[in-house]
């Protein structure tokens, strides 16, 4: 493995475009990823996260623009790039009819891990995935969290300096997600650059940089802390009440209400502080027969920023 010069970013993307026929799945995206950092791709379904990752792995050819991974232009020399990267595709992909050990040996083999060091790497992967004692179990019999960690283990057998993880934690329980993120962090501490896509907003907080993607466009590229400090253009209020749907239809589009969205058992409202106050809102809801359990001003979470920005980027435009 050739070492990348320390100052050089691990990934450089410039005006990357991918079109499928008339449809533009990725629309002039540019960013850089520092070595050893974690970048999280955040975006709704169909945003283009997987398409960007696939272009960076050399699985899809960009329609326009450039992607430099580990100092190499992916479109020009995908084979060399492949020696520097690990990839976990969105669709879970190990062989269910093979055992843990057989999968590890297979992937170690095709990734050209030298025969002499493969057993040690396999042992490391097994320990990391917490699969000691289950080496001979068929993969199809393992629970989701284990499969995910084993897939990660397979993807890093060849010690790639850059790792692409496409929604690695989708569909696993919270405890397994937490364990998975611990692994991601320890890899990052070892200097591995990690590109990870996710649907879970709470996971975004674990990243050094967040790339907010919607409809093929990069809406924001910053750290979770700066992202959270973004000026939403109003005050954010949270209202807890029994009938959320009714509350939303009552308040939507009213003067002073800039944006409104449901978050679990609460409604988050972006309001113009000059026109709307908590007291005023509570009054309106109670009059309409909706008892208010709790109301108050809150700090925006990444979720709120995300919903707001995606709303502004949607064809119907941001509400308010």
């Amino acid at each position, binding site marked *: 493995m050739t070492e990348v010069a320390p100052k050089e970013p691990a990934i450089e993307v410039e005006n990357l475009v991918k079109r499928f026929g008339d449809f533009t799945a990725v629309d002039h995206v540019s960013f850089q990823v520092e070595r050893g950092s974690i970048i999280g791709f955040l975006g709704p379904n169909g945003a283009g996260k997987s398409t960007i990752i*696939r272009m960076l*792995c*050399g*699985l*899809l*050819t960009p329609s326009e623009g450039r992607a430099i991974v580990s100092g190499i232009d992916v479109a020009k020399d*995908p*084979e060399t790039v*492949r*020696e520097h*990267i690990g*990839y976990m*595709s969105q*669709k*879970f*992909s*190990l*062989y*269910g*009819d*093979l055992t843990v050990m*057989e999968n590890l*040996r*297979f*992937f170690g*083999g*095709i*990734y*050209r891990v030298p*025969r002499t060091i493969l057993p040690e790497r396999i042992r490391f992967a097994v320990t990391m995935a917490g699969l000691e004692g289950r080496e001979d179990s*068929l993969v199809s019999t393992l629970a989701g969290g284990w499969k995910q960690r084993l897939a990660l283990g*397979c993807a890093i057998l060849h010690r790639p300096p850059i790792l692409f993880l496409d929604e690695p934690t989708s569909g696993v329980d919270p405890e397994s997600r937490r364990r998975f993120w611990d692994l991601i962090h320890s890899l990052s501490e070892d200097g591995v650059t990690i590109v990870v896509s996710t649907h879970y907003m709470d996971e975004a907080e674990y990243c050094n940089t967040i790339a907010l993607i919607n409809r093929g466009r990069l809406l924001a590229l910053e750290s979770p802390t700066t992202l959270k400090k973004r000026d939403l253009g109003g005050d954010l209020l949270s209202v807890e009440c029994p009938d959320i749907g009714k509350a939303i239809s009552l308040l939507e589009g009213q003067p002073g209400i800039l944006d409104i969205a449901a978050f679990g058992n609460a409604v988050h409202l972006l309001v113009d502080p000059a026109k709307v106050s908590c007291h005023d809102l509570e009054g309106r809801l109670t009059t309409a027969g909706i008892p208010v359990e709790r109301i108050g001003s809150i700090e925006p979470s990444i979720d709120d920023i995300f919903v707001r920005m995606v709303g502004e980027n949607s064809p119907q435009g941001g509400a308010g």
Partner: protein
Amino acid sequence: MFERIIRILVKELLEIRRDRWAMFRLIVPPLIQMLIFGYAATFEVYHVNTVILDRDHSQESRDLISHFVASTRFDVVKIAGTERDVSQAIDDGTATVGITIQPRFAAFLLKGEKAPLQVVVDGTNSNTALIALGYVEQIAATYSASQGKTYATRIPGGITARVEDLDVAQRPWFNPNLDGRWFFVPGVVGTLSLILTVSLTASAVVREREIGTLEQIMVSPIRPYEFILGKTIPFFLIGFAETALVAVFGVLWFQVPFVGNPFILMLGTALFLLSTLGLGLLISTLVRTQQQAFGANFFVSNPMFTLSGFSFPIASMPRPMQWVTYLDPLRYYLVVIRATFLKGVGIAVLWPDLLAMAVIGIGLLTLSTLRFRKALD
């Protein structure tokens, strides 16, 4: 390089071993199909190339020949001068049937005795031969019936019964008992191995595409040819074992003789498998799902079967269709397999067929390796 090919090969064999139904699927259907084909097949035949030797030179013998010439069943391609000409024509394939009208044919007929007529057929294609023999008998019977009438009018009182039959002495070569199965069983071996290996290879690659492991393999530094070799070698071995199984079964069950050189058959089988594996891989680069692969296999195997000469004689096809058959590896394999089973013919005769299969096989494998790009678009 070998390391990675072997990794894929081992993985492929492990997956087949884990699949509880794999062995059943590989063994039972081919044997059942072999039984069905072996027992069920007969066909009609037209325009059988025929050579006739007239050693009587009488009005009656010329009359009988005109019956054969008039028939759509037979194409009289040659009137032979000597017995040797007849065997020559059959040996070099000019004719499938040789009819010899023996001396004193007319004399016997006039006396109302059995008139000697000798028929020689190339029994290699015993189905054609068997059916052709039936037609010879029919024509002879019609002829003698009409002769009977002629004599009946000439000699009042009628002696129809006494001239009713010509004595048709059959002497088929190569396949002395004219067992239709002898012709079919070797053909079935080729056909089954075509269908089986094409579908196994195609679905083995497409399945990986479906479950997503192919995407994972594509981002590894593996080379396309390494992947393709690792994927095809197991099916080459399976195809080979399968062919051997079906062939041995045919020999034991249907008592089909095997007079040729098994090594030539093995060489032919290996070359044939190159084309079927190449075809399977090519299909896998063109389709997305196993269902599509199944459809494509059906779409390709059927014409290959039809154009191979397995059931419909290539010589009876329209010209352009005959040219297309040259692209069909099964056509050559059937020649090799029938020739080794029934005739014991060697490389000296079969090399063009072996060469043709090698060219088609290498062509298809190269094409599919080039088409197998490590990309999703």
